[in-house]
Every structure is written in structure tokens, then in C-alpha cells.
């Protein structure tokens, strides 16, 4: 049952990860001149000068990657239940493909947004000091945020549609009157991903690498 098991191993992993993160922060700070244990100013500098292309690349890959992960997760949750339920009630297969299609739609959102974000990325020259212009930086952050929003929204949406779709398949097999009712719930679940997509599109709408 993997994820449901919070055994001692998981606990120790958490402890070790947290300690190493703190040590990492400390290690970063050793090179700074501050007296405090963690030099927040220095850390800000570290992140403030991240290349906007890295951020936009991350954004695009998260948008598509997490969406597909969510869609795939949803499809296997729905699919395995669908196959099982269809053994005794073969009539449900074609109807319940709708659930799979809903999951698939989540991946399509991800693809659309990823293409949108990818087209936003343009080449600009860096400034003399090696930094990028404010608009480039903003665009990088916007694309990253947009990708993360869409990715996570679609991941969770995909799982949600998958679980509901699985229940839909099971209940349709027992009582076909339930199909439409559960489909409505599935539509609501599917809409969750759309919220993420909308926000993602709005976020990235004004992203421009080039100064106009």
C-alpha cells in the first residue's frame, strides 16, 4: 500500500532530508560574509540571478510533464476498474470511455499550455553586467509560475477525474442510471484543470522577453 504506510524508514528519510537541507543552506552561506547562520540576503541574490531561460524551460516541462502524469494516473485508475467492471457488464465499455477521455483532456490542456509557453520563449541578449532585463526576468518567472500552476492543477485534476471515473465505471456496471449522475461530478472534476489552465494563460499572457 506504499504511500499509506508511514513507517520508521519514511520518518528517518524525512529527518535526514531536512538536516541536509539546513546544512546545504549553511554551506551556501559559508562563502558569504554575513555573521548570521543563514544569510537571507545572499540566498536572495542566489535566486534572483537564476537564468530566466532555466525558469521558462522548467515551466514548460512542468506544464506538459505534470499534466501527462496526472492524465496517465487518472487513466490507469479508471482503466483498471473499467476493465474489471466490463467483465460482467460489457455494455459499460463504450460509455465509460468518456471518463478516459476526460483524463486525456487533462493531458491536452497541458500540451496546449506547454506550446503556448514555449512560443513565449524568445532569445534576448543579456545586459552588460551579465544580468537580464527586468521584462525578461518577469517573463521567466511568469512562464515558470504558469507552468507550475497548470502542471499541478492538471496533476490533481487528472487523479480526481481518474478516481471519480473509476467509481463511475463501477457504479455504471451495477446500475446504469447512475452513469449520467456521476458523469456530472466528473465534469466538475475536469473543470478544476481548466481553472489552472485559465490562470496559467493569464499569468503568461503579458510575458515578453524583449523590451518593447
Amino acid at each position: 500500500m506504499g504511500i499509506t504506510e508511514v513507517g520508521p524508514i519514511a520518518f528517518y528519510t524525512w529527518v535526514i532530508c531536512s538536516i541536509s537541507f539546513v546544512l546545504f543552506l549553511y554551506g551556501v552561506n559559508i562563502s558569504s560574509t554575513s555573521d548570521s547562520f543563514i544569510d537571507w540576503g545572499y540566498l536572495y541574490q542566489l535566486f534572483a540571478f537564476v537564468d530566466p531561460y532555466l525558469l521558462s524551460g522548467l515551466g514548460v516541462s512542468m506544464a506538459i510533464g505534470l499534466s501527462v502524469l496526472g492524465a496517465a494516473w487518472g487513466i490507469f485508475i479508471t482503466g483498471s476498474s473499467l476493465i474489471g467492471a466490463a467483465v460482467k457488464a460489457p455494455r459499460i465499455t463504450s460509455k465509460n470511455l468518456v471518463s478516459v477521455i476526460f483524463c486525456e483532456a487533462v493531458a491536452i490542456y497541458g500540451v496546449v499550455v506547454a506550446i503556448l509557453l514555449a512560443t513565449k520563449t524568445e532569445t534576448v541578449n543579456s545586459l552588460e553586467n551579465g544580468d537580464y532585463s527586468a521584462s525578461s526576468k518577469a517573463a521567466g518567472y511568469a512562464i515558470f509560475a504558469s507552468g507550475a500552476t497548470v502542471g499541478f492543477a492538471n496533476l490533481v485534476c487528472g487523479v480526481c477525474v481518474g478516481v471519480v471515473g473509476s467509481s463511475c465505471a463501477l457504479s455504471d456496471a451495477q446500475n446504469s442510471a447512475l452513469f449520467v449522475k456521476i458523469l456530472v461530478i466528473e465534469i466538475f472534476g475536469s473543470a478544476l484543470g481548466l481553472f489552472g489552465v485559465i490562470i496559467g494563460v493569464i499569468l503568461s499572457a503579458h510575458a515578453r522577453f524583449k523590451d518593447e
Partner: protein
Amino acid sequence: MYGFEALTFNAKDGYLEALVRGYRSGLLTAGDYNNLCQCDSLDDIKLHLGTTDYGNFLQNEPSPLQVSTIVEKCTQKLVEEFRHMRCQASEPLATFLDYLTYGYMIDNVVLIVTGTLHERDVQDLLQKCHPLGMFDSIETLAVAQNMRELYRLVLVDSPLAPYFSDCIRSEDLDEMNIEIMRNTLYKAYFEDFCQFCQKLGGTTAEWMTDMLTFQADRRTINLTINSMGTELTRDDRKKLYPAVGLLYPQGQQGLAASEDYDQVRAVLENYSQYQTIYSKMGFGETPLLDKAFYEEEVRRSIGSLDLQFHYGVFYAYLCMREQEIRNLMWVSECVQQDQKARIYDGIVYIF
């Protein structure tokens, strides 16, 4: 991480869960039972069953149909379905399904042991065994001449070995009453199964603990009632109570000391969950608790279908199927014996 089974459960067990729910939809409904109750002969019953999920399973039976044939065929169907699921199952569901068969296994071992002690023919004994409780080395069970040999040669390799070794000392084996042995094994089985389900965690653990609690308590109450007036002493009785369940340990103290139904009832009244049970126990008369227990079992089993992504449905399905076989047996017997008036006394409607 309670409730997060939804994310991972279907990777391994989604197909089987859906399948078992599909099987469940093949269970007879109240309408079917009403039709069956109208039957005048076993052939009518056969005809009616032909229209249900059972299909033509009685088609090739010779015409004077026996009740035992019906029961046998139904059991066969259940066994086929169960074996199919067992073949498809991956761990830990496979172990879970194995656990479900241990109860039958105990019965089979006890049956063969009894038969061997009374020098019956092995092949006959094997015929009588419940098909769900078969294990690889069961044929060799009868090789042994006495209990000690039996344990040393055969039972060590069977899944029941830990129950034997934990609860029964080899010097006890020879003169132990066979029923006490059976119940000692059951006790060990319950405790082990309960532990296993706790380890599985999540909804499975929650629902199965609830169900096993009920089963253990049912066993405890049955043991108490059935051992009244026998040579079983209070301490012996207490030793047979499973160490799980709501009644453990306080209720069991009370039950161990009970000598009549009123005392049992008084103990049970402290447990409001069992109100349906003890309300059936009249004051000072012999109660027929079996149906009340079956009803409660079915009620709980149906509850398992409201939850998804847990193993309880498999157990529930087994319980409901068993109940259905019992129902069919009852209906057929009533029809055959012309006891129409009592036909509704035994049926526990599942749906």
C-alpha cells in the same frame, strides 16, 4: 495516509475490485427470492435459477434433483470465481485471499484428522473437503497415523503450521477433543488475520477490523452458548475465545462466567453495537441467534460496497455468497419438505 489508497490501489488491484463487484451484481435479489419462494418443486427452482446469474449450471443434472446437488453446484461456482480472482491477484491481495481460505483449511484439516483417527478412507475424506480449503500437501495428511506424526510430516508445510505450533503442544495433540482443536485453531487464525489486516492499513484495515471484530465476537458468543451444559469448564472456554473483538477482554470475562442465556444477554447489553443480536434473545428461552448473526454479517458486508479501494469487498463477497448458498439451501429444503410456512424464516435478503 488514510484515504490515499485511491492513488495507488488500482495499480494492482483495480481490476479485481471491479471484478468482484461485477460478481456481486450476480447475487440474487429480493425479487429473485420471492420468485423462488413461489416454487412448488425443485425443478421450478432450477428453472428460476436459470434466469439469474447462475444460468444453466444445473442443466446437466439428472431429473430427480437433490438439494445437496444445488448446494454443491453453487459452491462450485463460488469456488471457480474465487480461484479466478486468486490467480489474478498480486501481493498483498494474494495473501489476503489466502487468509480468507484458511478458515476452510482448518475445517478440512480437522475433518481429515478426525477421519484418520477413525480409520476412514483417505480418498473419501478428500472428496468431502471444502474445495476452498485445499492446499498442496493435503493428500498426504492421511499418511500420518497419529497426531504427532501428522504435525511433523504434513502440517509443518501447510500455511496453518504457525497456528498449530503456537496453540497446540504436541503432547496435547493426541487426546485433545477435535472440536476444541478446531476452535483453538480458529482463535489463532482470527488473531493472525486481524494483525495482517492492521498491517495492510488504510480503509482495508478499518473495515476488516470492524468485520473481524464482529466475527470474533460472534464466535465468542456462539462458544458461550454452545458450551453451556457441556463438560467444557470456564477456563477452557475462556481459552477458546479469540483475543480480538469488542468483547475482548472485559465482555469475555463476563461471558466465560455465564451459565444461562440471561447472563449472556446481560453481558451483551453493555455493547450497544450488538443490540440487534441481544434483542433477539428472549428471556429464559433458547434463542435462535444464527439468523440474527447472518443478518448482521450481511448488513456489514453490504456496507463494504459503499467504500472503494479496499480489500474488504473480497471478504464481503465471500460472506454474501456463502449466505446466498445458505439461502438457496433453505429455500430448496423448504420447498422439498413442503414447509412453505417457514420459508421466510431462513432467508436473509442480501439486496
